[in-house]
């Protein structure tokens, strides 16, 4: 049985790089694909026009079509959906052509039903109503190019197609238009109208009076997702102090490559954790402001959680864990590692003495989930650490069977469990060979064991008897009990 558990490999960072089924299943948005490459096949009308009369199409139309395809790939359209969208594009352009409105129509405000459900398939200049949609915002920026300015990219990723940057003036104009449209849309329902007004006024003076910082969480909750336009892979984490600028937010395809780059840096180039953690935080921020909640988001949080544990960062681990719990509950998210991470939650609650919440988790588990290797292991560990009888023998036996992330999580608490066990041991024995403690408390090596005893000022109770090191439990009792009482107050940052 224990052998069985050993064979379970938590999806490791290394295996993730090579054979991630998630990436392989989604070729259009795959990590390897350059983000701006239009998915095949391009709509025929556009193609023809471009071929026959090179100057016959306005720039805004081309970018409109491009944006539609980008959006389709962002939303991971099925082939049927893509075909439907292409048919609609073709119809629309033909309509514009027959009505001679290719140059008249405001392509920047154009939308199609395939992307914006409920919108009529008509030229925007015919309807006279400013239709709007999320993707149009992106269009607004993109269409009215003022001055294509190559970005000053320090990183080696400059080979990627550079998006045109905006002058601040046109950015302002675009944003103003966007807010206008949004509040128009939102005023239909009172709740969203309120949030729209919050949006326009942000950062509002009233808001900042009681909250000095810009509230990222609240922003993400109350606002429509934006679509990032940044094409830079790496970005340092900054806590937002105002509404995020799309130019500094990376869209999903870029983020997917960012993850790969970071994993390479971490596993192959030995990049420091502080840097990796910072980069992951900025990725999480970009995902959040864009409301991207899908398998990729899960992967980012899971990966960050694992890396955080490898580096003893329980605070970040906790934040990821909290977010993962809510992500797994979202419909449409498969959560392949849900039970694995649930088992970490159980263990974390165990070590922080939150037994009630373990019971609640347990009650919610199905019979099938209970037999999951990760869950079963964590529950066995819970059982061994019962407050009625601390079965340290069983606990450390199980500990020696754990692997990777599970082991790293336990490692964060192992010494406090050792001292608790030792408190029981010193009551039961007068003396013990050190060797017994070495194996019973599963120290990995003699130096580790000695370091532990040194840390708790217990080396003074080591005695040499008949060529054997003996731990004088009788004398050590007060010291050990003092530490074990202290160990009960565990201080951990980060939320549960």
């Amino acid at each position, binding site marked *: 049985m224990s052998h069985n558990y050993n064979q379970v490999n938590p999806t490791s960072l290394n295996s993730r790089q090579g054979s991630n089924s998630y990436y392989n299943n989604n070729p259009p948005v795959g990590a390897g694909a350059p983000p701006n490459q239009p998915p095949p096949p391009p709509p025929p009308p556009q193609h023809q026009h471009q071929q026959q009369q090179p100057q016959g199409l306005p720039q805004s139309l081309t970018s409109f079509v491009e944006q539609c395809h980008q959006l389709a790939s962002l939303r991971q359209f099925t082939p049927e959906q893509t075909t439907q969208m292409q048919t609609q594009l073709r119809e629309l352009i033909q309509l514009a052509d027959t009505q001679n409105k290719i140059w008249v129509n405001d392509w920047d405000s154009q939308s199609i039903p395939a992307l914006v459900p409920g919108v009529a398939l008509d030229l925007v200049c015919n309807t006279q109503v400013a239709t709007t949609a999320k993707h149009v915002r992106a269009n607004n920026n993109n269409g009215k190019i003022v001055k294509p300015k190559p970005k000053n990219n320090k990183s080696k990723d400059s080979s990627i197609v550079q998006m045109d940057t905006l002058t601040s003036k046109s950015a302002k104009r675009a944003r103003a238009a966007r807010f206008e449209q949004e509040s128009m849309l939102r005023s239909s329902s009172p709740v969203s109208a309120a949030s729209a007004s919050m949006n326009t006024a942000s950062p509002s003076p009233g808001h900042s009076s009681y909250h000095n910082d810009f509230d990222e969480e609240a922003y993400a909750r109350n606002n429509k997702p934006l679509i990032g336009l940044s094409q830079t892979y790496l970005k340092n984490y900054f806590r937002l102090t105002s509404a995020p600028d799309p130019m500094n937010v990376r869209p999903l395809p870029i983020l997917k490559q960012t993850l790969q780059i970071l994993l390479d840096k971490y596993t192959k180039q030995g990049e420091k954790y502080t840097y990796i953690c910072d980069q992951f935080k900025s990725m999480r921020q970009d995902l959040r402001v864009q409301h991207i909640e899908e398998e990729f988001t899960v992967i980012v949080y899971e990966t960050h959680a694992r890396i955080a544990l490898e580096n003893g960062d329980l605070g970040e681990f906790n934040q990821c864990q909290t977010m993962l719990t809510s992500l797994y509950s979202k419909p*449409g998210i498969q959560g392949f590692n849900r039970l694995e991470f649930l088992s970490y939650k159980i263990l974390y609650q165990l070590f922080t003495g939150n037994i009630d919440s373990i019971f609640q988790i347990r009650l919610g588990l199905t019979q099938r989930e209970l037999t999951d290797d990760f869950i079963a292991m964590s529950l066995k560990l819970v059982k061994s650490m019962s407050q009625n009888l601390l079965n340290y023998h069983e606990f450390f036996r199980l500990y020696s069977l754990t692997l990777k992330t599970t082991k790293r999580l336990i490692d964060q608490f192992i010494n406090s469990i050792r001292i608790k066990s030792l408190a029981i041991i010193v009551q039961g*024995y007068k003396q013990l060979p050190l060797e017994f403690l070495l194996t019973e408390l599963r120290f990995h090596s003699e130096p580790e064991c000695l370091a532990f005893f040194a840390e708790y000022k217990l080396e003074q109770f080591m005695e040499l008897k008949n060529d054997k090191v003996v731990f004088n439990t009788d004398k050590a009792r007060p010291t050990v009990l003092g530490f074990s009482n202290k160990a009960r107050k565990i201080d951990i940052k980060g939320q549960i």
Partner: protein
Amino acid sequence: MSQFAAHSRNKIPVAGSDSASSGPGTSYESNISFVRQMLLLFRKEDGKGLSDIFQKSMVKELLNLSVAQITSELPPFPKEIKPILEAFITLNQTKMRTGDQKALFQCYYSLLQTWNKYAEGMENWVMQPLAAVADQLVKCAERADEIKSSQASKRSLNFDSSNTNNNNGIEEENCLTKTGRILDVSKRLCLTDRNEDGSVSKKVYIYYFAGLQLKIYSKLQNTALAKNLEKVLASKSKELPSIREIPKAHAVRYLYFSAVVKVGEGDYSTAYEKFQLAYQLSHQSLGKKLKEKILIYLIPLTFIMKRKIPKAQALEKYERVVTIYSGLIASLRTGNLAQFDRFFSSFENFFLKKNLYIAIESLRVSVLVRLIKSTYIINGSSPHLNLNLVTKAIELSTYGSSSGNITSLELTECYIANLIYEGHIRGFISHGNEILVLSKVEPFPKVLGK
């Protein structure tokens, strides 16, 4: 029949009547006189009479009435009563129109709100109808939540995964949670009643609402709120009436749920006292089912507190209790670990739900002590007990003789160290000699719960 009713009603011109169809109500005149009676009950401060009306599953006299009609038809009455009438009429008309529990919950919720408001300036006669409304609100909330959760599980099966945008970002609060919160208002009415005269003070009802809230929290598995409520009550305990002076049903419900919270906190002695009191109060008057519920806690708690095992005859008539605990009782007597483990694993979820998990689990330690003590006696009560002997005993007791499972000496030592630590055994382990050296005086002291 309804045609007749419609006919007779139509003869009387009704101002502002917008409902063209008439329900199965009685005549307009008798409807109005019913309301007149209700208003009279309000004036007479007849809590019992009003509570009878507000408990009815449907009041057919109100199905075709509006408050506008009532005010125009009847002599002026206190305007504070108007919202209650309005909410009550809406409730009954909604009941006739729909079986939608969510809609009904809203109606009951508004009705309790109006009562809460009305009760502020009144003496404790208002609490009886208010409590009746609260009771129905809780029942309705339970039904609405059940329906919602069964619908939710259906929906999640065929969810359209393409729509990942955050329409479902904010999850709707369930009805019981809302109910728990509005009951706070009712409870506060009782807590803050400054009336010196105990006979008219609303404080008598404090345990009614506290019990109702604890019941809700237990259903929601929200221990934090339950603990908080207990803290508030404890801080006000001096101003509150004695639990023996209030209606028994209120007291028993409160004591039961409060004791369940205490069991979860590991405060076995307080829990034991509360269950005992609840059992005494319910002894003559209350039903077998309730007693069984209490006994499910009292049996393990009595063992923990007094090391007493109930006699088989005493339990005979409580079949449910016997089904659950016969295995436990036998294993405690004989030190049979396998039997205990079988019993525990088959009721594990039950004990988790009842907050009893840790309490019952602690009894395994007692079974273990029993086993070691037996081994000691069989070994001739020598103060030197061979650990290999104990190991063999544990192995046999845990797995039986046939299986190939082996208990290690280290595990035995770990068990015994724990038992020494907790004071169940007096002595120490000699690791080198593989023996347990027992104290000559009382090597197995009785450890009573605290």
